[in-house]
């Protein structure tokens, strides 16, 4: 596995909103089949970094490469030209994303939420997409809820549907943007459980979370961000138990 090139390569990523620099030159590799957890105080740039990976956020400098393809740009004669929206959509369809606020489509049933992209983007038949959707729903523990509307479900159930929706496109990479932060404490476990299963199945994942125990248990790499920079990175044991950087120490002693 180490011989393979990393699935995600992020180099020199910068992004600022006005005078506020959110990403200040981030370099990061994510290997295939590995789980990378991004930790850090709020405002450290974790979510912005994640959103740059599927170009929901446009970087000011630097690039993101997924599976050898630069996201959002085409390299031509020494310049990076921004892609047309149709080409960008094709790239995005291979990267699943799960949001803090679930962002299920409230006017569509659970089933329609899941089969929307496979049918309209990947041009699968409705029958195949539905069969896959049922399979995915069963795997996240929600068999039989196909005809429910999102608002009829609990937060934890909605987030599990959101995971199933992202998986229905058979992505090669999954992005999780604080997937449990909007949940009641008792519902956090069911979502983390699904994510653990997914990690065990070999999915490449980048996860922004405050669940330190999840990082310790599931992550292959923990990356600590502060003020838009990677200040600590490595396997969970060394980063979480013995951080070298003072900022990381302060943060971890506050959350643990």
């Amino acid at each position, binding site marked *: 596995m180490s011989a393979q090139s990393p699935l995600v390569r992020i180099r020199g990523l910068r992004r600022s909103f006005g005078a506020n620099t959110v990403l200040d030159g981030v370099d990061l590799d994510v290997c295939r089949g590995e789980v990378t957890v991004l930790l850090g105080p709020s405002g450290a740039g974790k979510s912005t970094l994640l959103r740059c990976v599927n170009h929901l956020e446009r970087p000011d400098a630097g690039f993101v490469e997924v599976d050898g393809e630069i996201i959002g740009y085409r390299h031509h004669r020494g310049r990076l030209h921004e892609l047309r929206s149709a080409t960008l959509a094709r790239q995005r369809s291979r990267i699943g994303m799960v949001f803090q606020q679930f962002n299920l489509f409230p*006017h569509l049933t659970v089933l329609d939420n899941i089969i929307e992209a496979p049918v309209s*983007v990947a041009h699968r038949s409705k029958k195949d997409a539905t069969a896959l959707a049922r399979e995915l729903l069963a795997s996240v523990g929600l068999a039989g809820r196909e005809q429910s509307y999102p*608002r009829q479900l609990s937060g934890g159930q909605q987030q599990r549907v959101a995971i199933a929706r992202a998986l229905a496109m058979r992505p090669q990479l999954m992005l999780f943007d604080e997937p449990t932060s909007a949940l009641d404490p008792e519902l956090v476990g069911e979502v983390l459980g699904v994510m653990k299963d997914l990690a065990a199945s070999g999915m490449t994942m980048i996860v922004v979370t405050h669940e330190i125990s999840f990082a310790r248990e599931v992550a292959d790499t923990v990356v600590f961000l502060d003020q838009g920079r990677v200040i600590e990175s490595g396997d969970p044991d060394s980063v979480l138990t013995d951080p070298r950087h003072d900022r990381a120490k302060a943060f971890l002693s506050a959350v643990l």
Partner: protein
Amino acid sequence: MTNTEPRAPRLVRLKHQTDARMSSDPEKSSQPPRSSTGASDAELLAAPLVRLRKPWQWVSTAVILVLAAMVVHTLVTNQRFQWGVVWSYFATGPILAGLRLTLWLTAAVMVCGYLLGIMLAMMRLADNPILRAVSFGYVWLVRSVPPLVQLLFWYELASLYPELSLGIPFGRAFVTVRTAHLFTGLLAAFVGLTLDVAAFSAEIVRGGILSVETGQSEAAQALGLSRWRVFRRIVFPQAMPAIIPTTGNLLISMLKATSIVSVIAVQDLLYSVQLIYNQNFLIIPLLLVATIWYVILTTLLSIGQYYVERYYARGNKRRPPRGLWTIARSTLPVRQFLGADLAGIS
């Protein structure tokens, strides 16, 4: 219900009681129930519930009934309404022809106006600053000009531009049309009202689109949906609940606003009526004919709006939606009093 399941109603009642206390008397509810009443729990559980009396509801109902009776009385007894004349003209040929014109002019104006309006709203929300400016300028201009003036402008276009030609500016023209033949009263009415509806509907649609959370289009983009698909399938349906009530308003006001075409001699419902009473001077009964038709149409449109709203509200509520009839019944005061008795006595 009481026979088959004796315990359930009691729970329901108890809930009523606490609700009523909380809302009517917050001071009392903060104290423990024992200290204020001195009754045991068993006594409290056995005590029947009495709903809060609302005498003003009865008084206001009585006043409204009297006022309604007065209106009916004067409508029936005042001979000068000439109801006989009203019914004799109600469904005659010229009136129905006018009605047909009003109906299809409204429909055509609304459909074309909204297509334009949706386009303008999308332009206004686009990244391209030129498109945004054009949309803004159009809405600003059209909303500033009274519709009657717009109507007369299109009708009198021939005096301003006797000929319209399509070609290169300052160069040669390919097609030339004489405007005197182009703009009949009806076409002027259609164009003027359509442009007016476009401006207003653009703002309605824009407001609706802005009411949809940005997370929705982000999630759709992250799935790889095309921009058009994101708009049509995800954003627009969710904008509809915000768009429909105002659109119903605009539709109904446009139904009546089409009557301004009578100034350029287009024979809509109102103008047909005017033509008749100009000859026989039965002004009031003939205006009543038009009014009753407008009332009927507005009623039908309101009912239609209810069902369209219900369709787009799907997924919004945990409970399945109620039918129109159920809502009408539950709105009647009698029904409420009956409901109160059932909850208190049974």
